[in-house]
């Protein structure tokens, strides 16, 4: 029996037992996301398309799946979607510039053994691929923060319908701060777990601190962690601001309509 099939079945059963219909949808969303990822890779194989543009489009589709498919299409998810897109665009510009100057794209000397059988002149810009990897690693976390903030702000609006614009924004920031710690934690441990083999390798081969800090692999992985953290922090004010803007606008419109009646 295949271990992956059994693990998937266990996950499916647990999701249905605990989440019912919504659990089923969450499980399907994983598959859809897997499909989008595969599709992204296939598009990147064609040398004529810019991988960064492909990444932006895939991120938009992934946010649609994570926001509109797991939840529903309503004001909360639409503003969360908008905030995600704004954050992703800002982040990818920053990431591409930094990957380019810091020379961390592609493979490090530690990986030469496995690469020996491959031709490395594949005609695809690995700087852009490197930037795409960093963005795609955090897209799940970014949409999660966005939806948590917009749905909590929705609750705040419901309980205090006449809340001022500034207070509404601040309530969004407060919620964001509450989840910032746990979300960065989730990301860090996930990355730590993934890099465990590399860290043991550095220890076993007695790398000096200087050699570790300057090695391409370590640099790339640290930067991935840092950018993931920057992403989940950056989306907080962006979502709080965009959601305040739209909520206040919707309230004014509703007020105007009720006055006219």
């Amino acid at each position, binding site marked *: 029996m295949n271990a992956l099939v059994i693990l998937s079945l*266990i*996950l499916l059963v647990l999701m249905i037992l605990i989440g019912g219909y919504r659990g089923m949808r969450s499980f399907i969303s994983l598959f859809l996301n897997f499909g989008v990822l595969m599709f992204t890779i296939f598009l990147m194989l064609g040398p004529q398309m810019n991988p960064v543009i492909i990444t932006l489009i895939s991120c938009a589709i992934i946010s649609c799946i994570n926001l509109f498919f797991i939840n529903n299409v309503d004001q909360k998810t639409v503003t969360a979607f908008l905030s995600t897109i704004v954050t992703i665009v800002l982040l990818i510009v920053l990431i591409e510039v930094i990957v380019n100057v810091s020379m961390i794209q592609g493979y490090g000397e530690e990986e030469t053994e496995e690469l020996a059988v491959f031709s490395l002149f594949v005609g695809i810009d690995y700087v852009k691929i490197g930037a795409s990897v960093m963005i795609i690693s955090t897209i799940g976390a970014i949409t999660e923060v966005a939806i948590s903030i917009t749905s909590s702000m929705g609750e705040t609006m419901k309980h205090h319908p006449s809340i001022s614009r500034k207070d509404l924004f601040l309530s969004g920031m407060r919620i964001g701060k509450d989840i910032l710690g746990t979300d960065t934690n989730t990301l860090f441990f996930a990355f730590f777990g993934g890099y465990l083999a590399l860290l043991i390798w550095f220890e076993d081969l007695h790398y000096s601190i200087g050699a570790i800090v300057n090695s391409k692999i370590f640099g790339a992985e640290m930067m991935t962690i840092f950018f993931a953290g920057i992403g989940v922090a950056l989306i907080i004010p962006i979502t709080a601001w965009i959601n305040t803007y739209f909520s206040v606008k919707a309230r004014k419109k509703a007020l105007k309509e009720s006055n006219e009646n």
Partner: protein
Amino acid sequence: MIINKLKKMSRKQWVVYSLIVFCFVLSIIFVNHNSSFYKQPIAEVLSTHLQSKEKVTDQHNNKDQTYKQSIKAEIKNGKDKGKVIHLENEYSSSGAYDQKYKPGNEIFVIIDKHSKEKHLTGSIKNAKRDKYVLLVGWLFIFTLLFVGKERGFLALISLVVNAALMSFALDIYVISSYKSLVFICSILVILFTVISLLLLNGVNEMTYASITSTLLGIFLTLGVTYAVVHFTDGNGLRYEGMQFLTRPYEIVFMAGLLIGSLGAVMDVSITISSSLFELYEKNEKISLTALRKSGMDIGRDVMGALTNILFFVYAAGSIPSMILYLKNASPLGFTLSMNLSLEIARALAGGIGIMLTIPIAVYTSIYFINQKRKRI
């Protein structure tokens, strides 16, 4: 507006902010002038000259361009400090394993001692990247502090402490190789959980509840995953795809899986226990059924998003290798199983952890809330 804000800051805030800026400036100055701390010779590129370029087509019909550049660089440390070295570099436009250098780049070089030329010659070893890692590190610190203020600061502290613990534990593990990695990581997981949750939420019943449910959840997950992998003989998991192995692969994989799932499991237990304690605080007479229902609802709200976070963290890292495999005409099935099987297994195990922790966190929180009730 900024000036008004500056005036409003308390003395304590002033001290903290100045200290942070001071550390920032000091570390940036240090990392730009630290060549003398390295034993390997470092050279700064003064000028480059493109010697030739060539169109190449590999056996799979991928088209690329390769370039040869000659570089003049100045040695920054050691006994040859100040001398100019002549280097040669080949790079391609894809840059998967090579690098184009520009004036201003710093590189580690190996000086050729037997050269008969008048000027120094040698070869390029690696780029010096420490200043970029540091710069992005500071960008991360500033974003977290700017958005999260005190909460961001605590998150940073918890990250630094956890990273230090991890490196310390790995030191111990490597020195005394007879100890089991999974055992060491289990102890690490307990320490990580206690430290992170205390730092995130302070000393109170809610923290005790989330620590208990995190630990129950994570070890149950490890048990389930271990049982599945054992029962199926690891069928479908391509350990050959693992990189950087100096140790038995299955154990490294299990230990990584344990640590990797921890954050998500912690996230679920904090979210559930903090909401349930808040509900109890607002209404001390709230019924157990109502608490249970709210807890499970919150769990349902976060399960999909959290599983997707793990999926993307793990799967994204394999994109470059998948592209390389496919561009080298590897069959799709082989490419997928070599590059993604372990990543998918990690994401699935993390998802199972999240799902198992939801009921555990609900019942643990209810237990702790009941204990609190009895005391009052």
